[in-house]
């Protein structure tokens, strides 16, 4: 039993790491632009499908690198033409807009690539369990965790030490003042959105290696990311990180005792956090840090 529990905690951390990658992108966009990006799952799917299309030409590694950039470019175009128009309005506007976008992206992928799922293959070296006992730790999953870790570290470094990163953090705190100081807020928001969508694209490629690639696959991955943000605290990237890992572990552990509730536990966790600490674990009251 202890072994089963330990297995599932480790396993939950691996799953959680994936939620984190997706949630951090969502969180970035939410923090700076107050846009709840419902189309995030759609961009994830687009990222996966672009990788699927590129794989025959560039191989897995090439697709892994190129696809997120292409997804980010699509994201940037969408931001420039559509999302930027609703900045500053009630969040409901962006909510409805991205909600519609999510449908468009899902049906768009269906029109281009077909409704039936596509087999996305990963290099044989990655598709192996590391040991017979720890069969659930495959090289691919370790690789995924490594990619997530590196990406998160890079992102935090970017936010801390680059000019754009500092401005993004400042904008999260007080966009008006940042704007008054002469920073081009429009460009800053575009850059921030593109980085968020880059992360969605990257999640898409990673997900396609492990899950079935299908136009609807984004929907199932979006909710855990939202929950990660709420549990961690809106406005805090660290919170999102912890939130993602936490719901991954909670869901993994629940699967041992009461499998049917392994999904519901995330919502229970969210409800408890909202009741006990409405700002989320790392959210500061009234502050978007």
């Amino acid at each position, binding site marked *: 039993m202890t072994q089963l529990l330990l297995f599932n905690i480790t396993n939950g951390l691996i*799953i959680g790491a994936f939620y984190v990658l997706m949630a951090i992108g969502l969180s970035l966009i939410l923090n700076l632009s107050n846009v709840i990006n*419902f189309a995030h799952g759609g961009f994830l799917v687009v990222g996966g499908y672009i990788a699927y299309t590129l794989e025959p030409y560039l191989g897995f590694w090439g697709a892994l690198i190129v696809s997120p950039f292409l997804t980010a470019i699509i994201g940037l175009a969408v931001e420039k033409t559509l999302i930027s128009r609703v900045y500053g309005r009630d969040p409901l506007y962006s909510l409805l807009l991205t909600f519609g976008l999510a449908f468009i992206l899902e*049906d768009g992928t269906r029109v281009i690539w077909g409704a039936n799922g596509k*087999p996305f293959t990963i290099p044989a070296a990655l598709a192996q369990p590391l040991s017979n006992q720890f069969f659930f730790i495959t090289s691919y999953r370790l690789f995924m965790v490594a990619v997530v870790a590196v990406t998160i570290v890079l992102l935090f470094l970017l936010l801390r030490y680059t000019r754009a990163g500092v401005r993004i953090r400042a904008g999260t705190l007080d966009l008006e003042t940042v704007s008054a100081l002469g920073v081009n807020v429009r460009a800053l928001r575009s850059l921030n959105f593109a980085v968020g969508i880059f992360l969605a694209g990257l999640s898409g490629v990673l997900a396609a290696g492990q*899950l079935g690639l299908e136009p609807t696959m984004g929907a199932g991955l979006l909710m855990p990311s*939202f929950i990660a943000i709420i549990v961690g605290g*809106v406005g805090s990237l660290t919170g999102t990180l912890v939130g993602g890992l936490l719901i991954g572990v909670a869901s993994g552990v629940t699967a041992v005792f009461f*499998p049917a509730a392994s999904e519901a536990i995330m919502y229970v966790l969210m409800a408890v956090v909202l009741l006990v600490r409405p700002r989320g674990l790392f959210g500061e009251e*009234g502050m978007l840090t």
Partner: protein
Amino acid sequence: MTKRLKLGAVDSRALIKAGGVAGLAQIAAPFVWSARAADTIKVGIIDPFTGVYAAVAQNELIGVKYAVEQINAKGGVLGRPIELLVEDSANDVGTGVQKARKLIERDGIQFLIGDVNSGIALAIAQVSNEKKVLHIVSGGHTDGITGKDCHWNVYRVCNTTKMEANSVAELLFNKYGKKWHFITPDYAFGHTLQEAAQADLKKFGGTVTGNELTPLGTTDFSAYLIKARAANPDVLLVLPQGLDMVNCLKQVAQFGIDKQIHVAGLQQELESLEAMPPEARVGIWMFEWYWKQPGVPGVEKFVADIRQRSGGKVPTARTWFGYTSMMSYALVANQAKTLDGVTLAKALGNFELPPEVKLQPNKCYYRAGDHQLMTSAFVGEALTKPAGDPEDLFKVDTVIPGDKTSPPESETGCTLQWPA
């Protein structure tokens, strides 16, 4: 500061509201396409053309459209052409019911086909029954449709979950072993399928080491797989369908579980196998229809014709469901020389499908007592390497006739109430 306070609060709440909206998304109702002409016989099809079952629903539609084309080329039904009205249930029961009412009340259809989703199929069967419209459930498997919830006007083409379980269980038991562990999708279809298989297993004297109920739309199956392997069964039965099954089998292959435990299942579909990488295509399964049947009359022509209409893709079981549902109506109406629902429903009882429609070696007929089509089960193994054609992903070992896999009419729980 006040502003920031407000901003933070709005975000949190809006985010939670957003979650609610995500749930509502399923209800949104997309496109409709139809062509109208004078003096036609209107036929409606309701299927989930958007959402997780979109792929199988589209294949079903290809089959229905092909049948309409064939029927109209041969003079239609009672000399009138068929006009097909297509509605999207968006995989939502409420939407499906609404569309059924619309098709029957506003468009005045004579015959209804649908839905792939068992829950929607059950719900729209109540509407068609209330309105006395002949209805063939093409692809919803849950037993009740031709069991305890059966109706005089409702027939079904695809198998019941009981038939599916009966077709494979014995082979699995004899070939793979007697300790079984289930991964079951947590809804009507999964429950009845699992119960049927478990009943068979008990009959043979086997044991169940566990049953993991997984919510529909589960993406990560690792926790269940960890549990399943710890239970050390002989066979792991993977019962989820569609994307869930693809996710599960991909993870099974990556964890190497198929090298330690026999991995198998009951219902398998070409749509799912095509979505999997080669290493995930393992195990013994049953297909409800398969496109490669050397020597069976009509199959080659059917495959060639469908390829022309689907961008080169072969027909799947779903294509055949759609085709057979539509053809059954035309055949029985032309034979009975009427469009009257009750007369046609009576005439379909014990109606045997001709070779060019059944497209399988065994006798294929609608059973009069429960309105279930006695169609064959194609039992065999998934192929890691395609046998020649890239879509040949399944090796059929035996084709078992429907009346061998189906429980007798007396055991289905169906009592037909005919209108006075």
